[in-house]
């Protein structure tokens, strides 16, 4: 068995004449923390969508956990996403008529069975046990992002995909979110973070820089 959780090979994604991604190849090890950087429009989100089983490449192969997801049907893509991926969004995407707790439970519901106690534990972990019964519009941006993280981790995904998770947050909240990502990483989950913030990127072991849809640079962040 390979050590790799994710392998991209010559992945190209075209929108008409525009190549959002062109011949992108790289791989991510199990348990690794990788940052993706690059200027706006360089194809970061496009790549995350493909890795997150929400889009298919125009050509090339993407192997996630031993399965080539560029060949799967939409239905099984949904299942793979549900079982192996936790998504964190820049705009949080909480359901506005459900409480924090219920928002976490929705993820359980579509995965397996809702378990209120477990959902509550997840909220406790992100420090929101007091806020469990609040609706999203009663929460601050930082709190909403932490609900989003609790929702992403509730089904114990192997891979966490975060597209600019700190983009809408102030520094204090950014710190909290990074701390949570670090914890998840330490638990052995693989984390891929898209960011514009070099400080956030530094936390990762490697940074992949995209430019005009191509891998421009892969750097190791020597921390130890």
């Amino acid at each position, binding site marked *: 068995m390979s050590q790799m959780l994710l392998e991209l090979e010559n992945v190209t994604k075209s929108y008409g004449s525009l190549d959002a991604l062109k011949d992108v190849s790289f791989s991510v090890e199990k348990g690794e923390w990788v940052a993706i950087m690059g200027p706006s429009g360089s194809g970061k*989100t496009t790549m995350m*969508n493909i890795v*997150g089983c*929400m*889009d298919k490449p125009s050509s090339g192969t993407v192997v996630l956990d031993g399965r080539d997801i560029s060949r799967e049907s939409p*239905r099984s893509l*949904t*299942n793979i*996403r*549900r*079982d192996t991926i936790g*998504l964190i*969004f*820049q*705009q949080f*995407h909480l*359901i*506005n*008529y*459900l*409480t924090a707790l*219920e928002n976490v*439970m*929705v*993820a*359980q*519901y*579509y*995965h397996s069975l*809702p378990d209120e106690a477990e959902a509550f534990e997840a909220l406790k972990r992100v420090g929101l046990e007091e806020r469990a019964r609040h*609706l999203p519009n009663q929460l601050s941006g930082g709190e909403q992002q932490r609900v989003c993280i609790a*929702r992403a981790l509730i089904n114990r995904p192997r891979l966490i995909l975060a*597209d600019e998770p700190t983009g809408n947050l102030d520094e204090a909240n950014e710190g909290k979110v990074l701390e949570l990502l670090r914890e998840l990483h330490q638990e052995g989950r693989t984390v891929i973070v898209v960011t514009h913030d070099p400080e956030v990127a530094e936390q990762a072991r490697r940074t992949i820089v995209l430019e005009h849809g191509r891998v421009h640079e892969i750097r190791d962040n020597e921390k130890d």
Partner: protein
Amino acid sequence: MFIRMILGALFRQKGKMLMVALTVALGASLASAMLNVMLDVGDKVNRELKAYGANINVLPKGALLLSDLYGMEQAPDTPDMYLSEEDVAKVKTIFWAHNIVDFTPHLNTSGTINGGADAVKVTGTWYQKHLSLPTGEELETGIQRMRSWWDVSGDWISDEDTDRAMIGSALARQQGLELGDSFTLGVGTNEQTFTVSGIIEAGGDEDDQVFITLKTAQDMTDKQEKISSFEVSALTTPDNEIARRAAENPRSLSAKEHETWYCTAYVSSICYQIDEVVPEGVAKPIRQVAESEGTILEKTQLLMLLITVLSLLGAALGISNLISASVMERSSEIGLMKALGAHDVPLTWLVLLEILLVGLVGGLIGYFAGLGFAQIIGQTVFGAPIAAAPMVIPLLSVLVALVIIVGSLPSIRYLLSLRPAEVLHGR
């Protein structure tokens, strides 16, 4: 969890859901009003049309024979030219007694005014006659109810009056008579003085006639308890093939057909039944009126059906718009659920069930509001309450459910085609 999600969606977005419920309610109320009116309108329109006069005329056998030969005017004065006044109430004993709305006898004769040379037609009849039938039923009937379109200045006379008369407007002009004037009416050798109580503007033969009570006419002609004919106003079913054949000859029907015909309120079967209870008379439908009534009724019902269909169509469009708007607004939420692993079928159910629940509430409100509308329509158009038909409830439920499902089809198609990648990154 499913239930919590639905309840959350319903109760925490009250405003939006209320709009959908109200649209459904509006459509449902129109449909329920129209359906209720439509199912009840047969009777109502029929009664309304009956207000425009009689549709069956009962003549003595002898008169019919002679009038066929010479026309009424020259008919000689023989005993078989008359029916008995007590025959009239017998129409209330036939199988379709319930469909007999009004009836009134006539005793026709001619006389002179103030000793003039011209003969004028004199009719004795009932005006607002109170009858106590042998069956115990009490009712009021007479020409005042059967000629509601007459434009009468002054007062109608009552059945007890012996010295008041109503005269046609043309006759009044010709004789220079006005309300309150007196005149002498000569019939045969008898003479009597009357006051003009009312002047009739009917737009027909009646404008040249004198109207007095039946009793007075009988006394003046020495024809106690006799009448020359009576007219009956009945609610009838539009004729079909069997009815037409029966009208030609009732014996041409098979036993089974005869039974069906007899037990249906065709004008011909009602006539047949009147003949059974008044053997000295012959009941004749006044064809034109009876037939046009049937077609007018059919047309009215068609019109109402059209309005029902249109109102439901309108509601479907409105619902479709509202639901589309709500689904579009929630596309990021639905994309998120897809991203979290929701498959198409449960998602469709979620949205559909939500809308159906809201639709149920709207439908209920609409049904009762529609009953209210139906009453308003009933009162303003027909001057009578509309009976609530229980059949409307299942019919309306099915229609509302259908409208909601059809109305949400475009949204559901949109929902299924939604790709989470496109909605979640706020492009």
